[in-house]
């Protein structure tokens, strides 16, 4: 949709398709095809192993992940779709596997939307953190500012805790009483942003995406079934990682990882990422958390620490303590800046993914359609 990426992508695909066409016109195209398929798998492996390990699940990492996903997707299309006789794609087992993949694609669109909403909720957390930063930057730091910061941070932490609570419950509790106690508890990430449709569940959605996703066996494993399986796995993995990082409606029981073939080269980097993320998830699951996004995790820690500071604050503050807090405030402020700079582009990128996979799906459908037309007996 954004004009620039579109044209970039066009030219990239253009190049590949030219190469394909040349290849197809040469002799020994079968060997070439095998080589293409292997290359595709190798590239997938490479892409995921090149993801930086140190800032796993940070905003920057997620953006990188989506970049890699888009590349995989483009290459997949180049290998499977372009310059190919439509009838190839209508033969078994592809006549079953491709529609399955396209189904998964449609399901992933909801995940994209849910994640976009989750990022909206994060923007609200960011704003609360910013209030705390502004307040704690004040000098001299007085009771009022500390209380102000504490109020914002308490709301922030409460919102984080509310992560998987149902939207309805918080909805109800908000409508009572103007000044019953503190206002802080009223806010939750759910109440911060639009919600998905009723009953929608990220967890169910990911599980639905996983159904029928099985490695091809026997003869099938050397043909086009393989890249279709690889792409399906990549899609599910990326969506799963997004759901892990960002608050999403209803995501119980996703902490466990889903089956990927461990022995295979292309899957290994994904498997190891998956294990790391699942481990993190397990750690946090009991506490209830707003998502594994690195920035949010840090924000949570700083939040707790600063609330502690606020609780024990006495005016005027001791210089040592103040220095210490100043550092934390600076850190919190840096996180806010990173979110300020990163969330919006991340949302745009998710939207780009959304549009890209919709377009690709259409392209596949059209080709399958043509194949269908060709197979219709002429009058």
């Amino acid at each position, binding site marked *: 949709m954004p004009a620039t990426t579109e044209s970039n992508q066009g030219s990239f695909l253009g190049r590949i398709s030219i190469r394909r066409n040349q290849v197809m016109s040469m002799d020994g195209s079968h060997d070439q095809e095998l080589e293409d398929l292997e290359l595709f798998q190798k590239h997938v492996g490479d892409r995921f192993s090149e993801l930086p390990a140190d800032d796993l699940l940070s905003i920057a990492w997620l953006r990188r992940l989506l970049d890699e996903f888009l590349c995989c997707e483009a290459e997949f299309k180049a290998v499977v779709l372009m310059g190919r006789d439509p009838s190839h794609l209508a033969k078994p087992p592809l006549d079953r596997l491709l529609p399955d993949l396209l189904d998964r694609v449609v399901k992933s669109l909801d995940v994209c939307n849910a994640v976009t909403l989750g990022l909206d909720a994060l923007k609200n957390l960011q704003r609360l953190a910013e209030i705390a930063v502004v307040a704690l930057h004040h000098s001299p730091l007085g009771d*009022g500012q500390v209380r102000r910061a504490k109020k914002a941070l308490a709301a922030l932490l409460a919102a984080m805790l509310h992560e998987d609570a149902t939207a309805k419950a918080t909805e109800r509790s908000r409508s009572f009483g103007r000044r019953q106690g503190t206002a802080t508890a009223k806010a939750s990430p759910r109440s911060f942003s639009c919600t998905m449709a009723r009953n929608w569940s990220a967890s169910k959605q990911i599980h639905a995406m996983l159904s029928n996703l099985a490695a091809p066996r026997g003869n099938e494993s050397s043909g086009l079934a393989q890249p279709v399986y690889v792409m399906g796995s990549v899609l599910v993995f990326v969506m799963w990682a997004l759901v892990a990082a960002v608050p999403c409606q209803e995501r119980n029981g996703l902490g466990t990882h889903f089956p990927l073939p461990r022995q295979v080269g292309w899957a290994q980097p994904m498997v190891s990422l998956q294990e790391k993320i699942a481990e993190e998830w397990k750690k946090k699951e009991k506490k209830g958390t707003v998502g594994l996004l690195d920035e949010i995790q840090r924000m949570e820690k700083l939040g707790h620490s600063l609330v502690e500071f606020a609780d024990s604050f*006495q005016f005027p503050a001791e210089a040592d303590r103040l220095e210490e807090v100043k550092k934390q405030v600076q850190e919190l402020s840096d996180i806010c800046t990173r979110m300020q700079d990163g969330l919006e582009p991340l949302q745009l990128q998710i939207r780009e993914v959304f549009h890209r996979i919709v377009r690709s799906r259409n392209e596949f459908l059209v080709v399958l359609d043509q194949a269908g037309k060709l197979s219709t007996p002429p009058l």
Partner: protein
Amino acid sequence: MEKNLAEHSGSFARKADDDAGNVTYSPVPESDNKVDAKMDTDDTEETTNSDNVVGENEPKKNEEKEEGEEEKKENEEEAVEAQPESPPPNLEKVSEEIDQFLVTLENSNNSKGKTTLEIPKFLVAFLDLLEQKITKYDSGEAKWADSLEEDSLFLEAVNRVSNLMKHFTEYYNSHREEEQEDQENVKGKTEFMLNGLCAIQQRAMSFLEEDFRSIIEESRNPNKSDPKGKQPVAEGSESETPTETAMDFPGFGEETVTNLRKIAREMIAGGYDSECYQVYAVSRRHAFEDGLYRVLGYEKLSIDEVQRMPWETLEREIPTWINTWKECLAVWFPGERRLAEEVFTTEADAAAASLYGNLLGNVSIQLVNFAESVALTKRAGEKLFKLLDMFETLRDAVPSMENLFPEDVAWEVKTETTSAKCRLGEAAVLIFCDLENSIKSETGKTPVAGGAVHPLTRYIMNYLRLACEYKDTLEEVFKEHSKMERADSTSRPRYEGEENKNKIEAQKDNVSPFAAQLMRVMELLDSNLEGKAKLYKEVALSCIFMMNNGRYIVQKIKGSAEIYEVMGETWCRKRSTELRTYHKNYQVEAWSKILSFLSPKGLTENGKVQKPVLKERFKSFNAAFEEIHKTQSAWVVSDEQLQSELRVSISALVIPAYRSFLGRFSQYLDPGRQTEKYIKYQAEDVETYIDELFDGNPHGRR
């Protein structure tokens, strides 16, 4: 800015000899004196109490260093000294003093240099009074909006606090670096004062935030929304129950808005803008989403749900969606924008813009998502019209977007809308092109009885007639689509096969892509029908079949101005010519043989009529005519005009020939039995029987 704001007090207390201050503070001591005088009369122990109260409320204060305590003592002493007797302190009066104090601070703005700050006693009284007021509000003893006067008094007081904060902070910051010993005390005092101010400001702001929240949320209850704005937030206005219609969205009364505006102004002035925006944004988002569901009946559906829904159910969601979209653009979005602009009027336009911009952008994209998800559903002929409805809705929305959203949001929403519109357009094109498939896949081998109009013809023609009610939109969709195809033909597979494309390109420039597609459908239908015509054993019947279907097609096309316009006059003329050809062929096939019996040729030999041959001729004619009558009265021509045309033309062909044959040769038969045997029909009888043809029910012999 007010670096020297505090100098007057300094001069009064300890730094009277400070030369830098001297110039400016001529009015200052005056005011201070006045203040003192007032303090003397108004404030008695209250001041002391107030000081204590402040101290109690901020227990940490007690841990203060000497300066603080000293200061306190001083204050107490002064207060006590100044206390004869006391009417209770009054916020209004103290406020006046504060205002003067602020004015002098402002005035001392331009003088620079070392200054000192003295904290006037009435300041403490003021804070105390304000705190009492907050407590009253907080406990529910006083209610917001019960008394406008009280409310504005409070807001003004909060404003004073914010101003004081600003001045004191500036003073503090500009004097922070100064290390003069005699200022240590002042610095401590300032810090102490700032802390008190800041604490009370926080309490006030916290209250205002809650107040702002409840005012804005109470309007979510439709029973409480009051379009006339008489009782903005008062409880118990259930008596009048204005139903929340879209027209008064977002349904805030004028006074409510004023109220919100006032609170927002103070929160922003006090630096609590983020809190205010946050509360506003979250509340409005909920109110808006609620409203979409409650008032407009629009319920969010996930893309997955939409895919799984039966079409009959989904079909019903579409008008709701269209209505929601239109209402939003016409009423809700402008209303939401207005509200944000009115509440945050004086402050920052950018803030209001980003508040309503984010909300409206999110809602729009959510609505657009529904269109995307419908475009993703499995294609089916019956969906075309609803998809086109949605397409039109989105298309018509785009031009108004510039004025509804802030620039950046407008760009995003427009892009998303355009994209969804494209998807719908694509789906529509594909569905329309699927007509080709439904024609091609109609390969039934059973001929329709009596050569009647084939169901396929009916289906296609009725579908096309409906489709052509959307002709302009379809033209647009096809045009956009063919543009797209040309633009990125490398990455986008074609929707039509190569041969088809060539055909389209071969069309003259004035044929639109939609017209070309329509032509193509017609051609396919034709060739399909031709194939079906061959299923009939009798050529005459296949001619009737072709005439019936051709006639049906032409009638349908002439009956709809839109299709007629697309197909053009030439096409129709050509079709009519073809129909005439079929008619001719029919005549030849069905009647030439029987006419040959009526030919005088071969009847005479050397000028003499051969009687046996003549008898044979009559016999043959009778048999043939009976046969034709029997079969062809079972044939079907349901179009009345065509039916009568056929009968007339048959009569014109047969009757004169028969009549003249009778006239010429009947005399050669012996009158009586022989004549009766061979001349079964008079010309009139033949005509009657011809009029029974194509009725679709076999008459048999009379």
